[in-house]
């Protein structure tokens, strides 16, 4: 390890930071619906997801040999380019987390790589056709496939279960749906660990190879596997509560059967697509599944304003991360001082986003299911769902639950909430003012 230069060390640390943001950005994919339907307590859910991500990181030894999947020509890649790409990906991940929108971490990474590669070696280093087939098409197809599957599955489950009327039976079935949701959420977490943790391992390995520490074609050293697994697990455990809130309850109101249908659809699409040779984006699949399940229930409401903002974020991911990556690469090209400037900018940018997020913190208390989860979908609930504005993305108008003392707030009863949405509270006093 004594051959590791300062630049290489910076790249490795940055890759691990990206891995970490990837973890907390994508917790929502696996756990948002599980949390919002009350199948698992928020903390339990992220802990389980983190554990499965860690396991997933160790599961497969078949590490992705090409991190970029052929999008860019990796042969002449310099370490600085990888660094610049990571900077773009991290900043975009943090920004979308700040506004609470689910967006693909892989796309952010691809965007960063494309931007940095173009700045470094010109347009010829990017394979435009591969960008379309590997990034754009999957991103469009994923929500459609997953959404349609979830929609039909939700319809079906409500039709079959239509005979269930009384409360005791509904309680009993809710328990069953929870078990199903936990199982499919576990699968998504596991798949995420194997895919995304390995992406980071691939980056670090690639950096080590380009830095001349490892010989080309060698497998990642054990310390790389361990640190990448731990970074993604830690990120997952801290939980991107903002994104979880958007996906779990911001897009639509989910009942246990819908949550189960959405989760199963997402897990199926992810597994089927990655093994039938046409990988679809995880984030897009999960968001699509949630919306499909929302539309599947009679009287279900999808908040299209939130959905639209999410679509916009998807569209911006590649160019935005690319621009940052290109800018970072422009600086790192200038020499050592450029690398230092980019590193400082990255820390400053991350710090600024973190400070902004503290102005309106969103914690695990804010994503818990509202009120009694087994409560039937009354007219009022649906009406509220229709009028409640989407969760805030920096807007100050919506109720924010404030945990007074983190030490005692594990019992939700002790939670103090500030209702800024009088309509919601008046209509349904049993609901904490959680959005």
């Amino acid at each position, binding site marked *: 390890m004594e051959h590791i230069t300062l630049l290489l060390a910076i790249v490795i640390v940055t890759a691990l930071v990206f891995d970490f943001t990837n973890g907390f950005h994508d917790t929502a994919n696996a756990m948002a619906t599980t949390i919002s339907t009350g199948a698992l307590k928020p903390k339990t859910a992220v802990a389980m997801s983190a554990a499965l991500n860690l396991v997933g990181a160790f599961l497969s030894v078949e590490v992705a040999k090409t991190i970029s999947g052929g999008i860019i020509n990796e042969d002449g890649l310099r370490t600085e380019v990888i660094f610049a790409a990571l900077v773009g990906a991290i900043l975009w991940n943090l920004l979308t987390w700040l506004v609470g929108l689910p967006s693909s971490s892989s796309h952010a990474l691809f965007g960063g790589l494309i931007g940095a590669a173009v700045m470094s070696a010109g347009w010829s280093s990017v394979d435009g056709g591969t960008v379309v087939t590997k990034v754009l098409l999957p991103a469009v197809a994923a929500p459609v496939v997953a959404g349609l599957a979830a929609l039909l599955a939700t319809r079906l489950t409500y039709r079959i279960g239509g*005979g269930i009327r009384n409360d005791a039976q509904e309680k009993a079935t809710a328990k*069953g749906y929870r078990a199903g949701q936990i199982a499919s959420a576990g699968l998504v977490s596991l798949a995420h660990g194997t895919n995304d943790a390995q992406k980071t391992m691939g980056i670090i390995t690639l950096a080590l190879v380009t830095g001349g520490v490892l010989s080309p074609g060698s497998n990642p050293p054990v310390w790389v596997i361990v640190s990448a697994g731990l970074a993604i697990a830690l990120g997952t455990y801290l939980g991107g509560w903002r994104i979880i809130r958007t996906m779990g309850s911001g897009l639509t109101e989910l009942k246990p059967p819908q949550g189960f249908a959405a989760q199963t659809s997402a897990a199926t*699409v992810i597994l089927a697509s990655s093994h039938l040779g046409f990988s679809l984006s995880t984030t897009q699949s999960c968001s699509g599944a949630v919306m499909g399940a929302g539309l599947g229930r009679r009287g279900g409401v999808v908040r299209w304003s939130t959905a639209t903002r999410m679509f916009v974020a998807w569209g911006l991911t590649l160019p935005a991360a690319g621009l940052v990556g290109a800018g970072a690469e422009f600086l790192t090209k200038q020499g050592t001082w450029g690398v230092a400037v980019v590193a400082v900018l990255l820390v400053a940018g991350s710090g600024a986003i973190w400070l902004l997020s503290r102005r309106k913190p969103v914690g695990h208390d804010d994503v818990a299911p509202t009120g009694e989860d087994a409560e039937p979908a009354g007219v009022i609930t649906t009406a509220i769902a229709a009028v409640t504005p989407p969760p805030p993305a920096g807007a100050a108008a919506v109720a924010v639950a404030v945990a007074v003392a983190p030490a005692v707030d594990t019992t939700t009863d002790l939670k103090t909430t500030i209702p800024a949405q009088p309509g919601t509270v008046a209509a349904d006093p049993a609901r904490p003012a959680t959005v």
Partner: protein
Amino acid sequence: MNIDWAALGSVFGVSLVVTVALVGLFTLGIVGLSKQPEPAAQGGSTGGSLMLARAGAYLCFGLCAAAVAYGIYLIVA
């Protein structure tokens, strides 16, 4: 640039069928299990069909568990 429409199509079809089948099976299982014994006034004659419903439910859950196991196998392999 060649788009592998066949792969995309099969992903679409398989995802749709598997999801709907799994959710359907699971719901059948849940419904089977949630069948409560009829009120005592009916007498014990429904015991047999209740047993049948239970057995069917466990079969459904078993199939779902098999699907999950296959999913894990896909991830590991």
